[in-house]
Structures are given as C-alpha cells and as structure tokens.
C-alpha cells in the first residue's frame, strides 16, 4: 500500500507532513483523527514489513491516540477552563509549521553545498613558505592527540549499539548492477573503481561486483580510464560536458 519506507523520513514530523500532503489534509484546519488513523496505518504497515520503527515514531503515535481518545470523551467545559493548557492540536500544528520551515530551507542549503563542492582550493605553497621561513607551522602536543583519540573512542562506543550487521547474501550480477546504479548516483561523474567495493563484505561479493562493473562497461553505462595503478570509472550518462570537447 505504501511505497515509501520509514527510513526515507527524517522523523515523525516528516512522516506527518508527508501524510498531510499525500491525503490532502488541510494543515491549517487539521483533522487530527484522520491524521492519527493514517499515521497508525502507516506504522502498522511498516511493522508488517518487519521494518524497525524508531521509538520516536511510536511515542508521537501514542500522543496522537491520546488526543483522539480525549476528543471522544464528553467534555466538561468548566474542567477545561480550570486547568488550561495549550490545545494539543494547536501545539501540534505549530510544531509541524515550524518543522516545515526548516525542512524548506534544507533545499537551499543542499544547493549551496553542492555548488561549493565544485570549487577546488590550492594546496599551501610549501616551498615558498620554507623559502621565506623555515620554521614550524603547526602547533600541537602529544596530549592533544591523546585527547582527540579519547573523543573518537567515546563516539565509537556510543555508536556501536546502533550498528546492525548485514549478513552476506548471494547476489546475482544483475541484482548487483541494480545496486551499483543506485550507489553511483551518489558519486561524482568520475570515481575510482575501488568505490564500487566499499560495501563488499566477502570475496564472493567482490567477484560479483567486478563482473557487474565489466557488464556495465560493456553496455556502455560506464566508461573507464587508467591512470598509473588507478582505474577510474565515468558515468556515461553524465551531463557535465564530459563527452566530446569542451
């Protein structure tokens, strides 16, 4: 029913905004009961697909259900007035609006980031620097190094429980080509052959990957160049002026 899996959302608010758009709900006059049912449906279907649902999604679901059930109860107006808190619906809409704003801005940031990646700097002119000043340029102590390593170790130990093991699977060359096609869309137009092997956990997968790359070269999806010991692959579908003369 849902073609979009949970890991494509960056959180429960992102999912809610998607459902509101998808089901054409009015954010400014939000039908929370409807949103709650849609949200619940989605989470259930993801669970049926055995996808792991982060606790944040479930706690937002609990909040929605709580609101929905309260609405069904007969209201005692005097009680409501006595114990005034912000209407949970109003607060949810405000959160969604605020979140939406930041989400909107990420497109702009992303564009700026991509363009900046294309600008290349020049390395420090070491020789020229040495000519005028042979002194040490960098300052540090072994204590700095140890402290830095400590930070790394803390981060690694915090990250460990979140990592899941991926069991080796028997893949066909065709399946691997599909995976590679998806992988290389994240690469620049030209990339080192070794990048295709980064996720290879065993020799079997390495061989299949290699066969897949050969096949992609054969059918013209990839071009390759050799520079010294390094092999570079070029996506032939690139539209960055690679083909032909500049």
């Amino acid at each position, binding site marked *: 029913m849902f073609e979009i899996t949970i890991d494509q959302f960056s959180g429960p*608010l992102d999912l809610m905004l998607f459902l509101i758009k998808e089901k054409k709900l009015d954010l400014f006059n939000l039908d929370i009961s409807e949103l709650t049912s849609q949200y619940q449906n989605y989470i259930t279907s993801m669970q049926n697909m055995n996808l792991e649902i982060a606790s944040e999604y479930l706690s937002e679901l609990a909040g929605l259900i709580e609101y929905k059930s309260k609405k069904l109860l007969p209201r005692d107006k005097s009680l409501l007035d006595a114990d005034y808190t912000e209407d949970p619906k109003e607060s949810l809409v405000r959160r969604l609006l605020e979140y939406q704003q*930041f989400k909107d801005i990420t497109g702009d940031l992303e564009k700026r980031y991509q363009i900046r990646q294309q600008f290349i700097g020049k390395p*420090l002119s070491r020789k020229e620097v040495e000519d005028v000043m042979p002194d040490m340029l960098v300052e540090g102590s072994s204590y700095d190094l140890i402290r830095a390593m400590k930070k790394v170790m803390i981060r690694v130990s915090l990250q460990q429980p979140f990592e899941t093991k991926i069991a080796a699977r028997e893949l066909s060359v065709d399946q691997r080509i599909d995976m590679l096609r998806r992988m290389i869309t994240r690469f620049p137009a030209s990339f080192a052959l070794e990048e295709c092997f980064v996720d290879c956990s065993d020799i079997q997968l390495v061989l299949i990957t290699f066969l897949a790359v050969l096949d992609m070269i054969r059918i013209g999806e990839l071009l390759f160049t050799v520079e010294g010991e390094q092999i570079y692959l070029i996506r032939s579908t690139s539209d960055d002026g690679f083909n032909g003369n500049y």
Partner: protein
Amino acid sequence: MTDLTVIIEGLLFIVGEQGLSIEQLAQTLLCSEDEVNKAVDQLAVFYKGYNRGIQCVNYGGQVKLLTAPFIHPYAQQMLSIQKTRQLSQSALETLAIIAYKQPITRVEIEEIRGVGCDIMLRKLQALDLIREQGRSDAPGRPILYEVTREFMDVFQLMSLDELPKLEQIVSGSSQELFE
C-alpha cells in the same frame, strides 16, 4: 589593482585553501580592516571581470582563492578528485536549526525535529560544522551549540543573514487560524 590588492592576491595564493581572515590580513599588512575589506572586494571584482579560472571568495570573513565553477569537470578528469560527500536530510535539518537558533541546546533541537540528535551532533562536530559554545543557564546547564567558520565555507555564506528569512510563527495569536 592597488598595491594592497596585489599583495593580498599573492598572500592568498601562498596559503591556498586555508585562506586568511580579514583580521590576519590587516595585522600582516599593518592597515585597517576597512582597507583590507575594500582591497578584497576589489580583488573579487577583478577576478569576476575577466573570463577566469580562479575566483576570490569571502566566506564568513575567511578570504580565499578557489577555482571557478566550470573548472571542476576538467579537474576531475586530470586528478583523482575525491567523491563529493552528500549531507543527509537529517544533517541538513539539524544544521539549519542550529544556524537559525544558535546558540541552542540538544534538547531544543530535538523538540523541533521530533527525534534524538545525539549521534548527529557528534558527527557534525567531527565534521567541524558545529561546535560547543558554552552552556545554557537552564537546569543541568546543557551544552550550547553554534555553527563554525567551516559551516560558512561549505555553504558559501559570508554571513548568516544571507540565509532565507524564517516566517515568524506566532504561537499566541494564531487562535483564529485553527478553529
């Protein structure tokens, strides 16, 4: 170009991608930051005025020379230019929130995003895109985060004012909107 502009061009060329701050230039050249700013502007205009392979940029007060945009495909062809890293949607959201709300605590970011951000903040710190900047007065004195000069660089910003304005969300007077 004036002598000052020419000297700045030479110094920027030597230091390469690290660049130099306006303060460093003013200190080195024994002149005011105003004068440096003017000279840097002149240099940027000079580079823009011709069809050139180099440009002069000022990101968050750090001035540097970089290649012009259209050089990249040729550079890729010649050098083993590393693959460009994508920032994930979650990373961009977190950065956007910090850039607009800084200094901000982890809990405040999590309230806006609706998800835990502990690991994400550590990653962004490891990338030098954010840094810890003191502590809030709130209970538990949580750490405050802000964006770094590196952030200004990777998003090509001279100042945070260049980011699009947020529409103010008025929490109190929005009654009539919702009922």
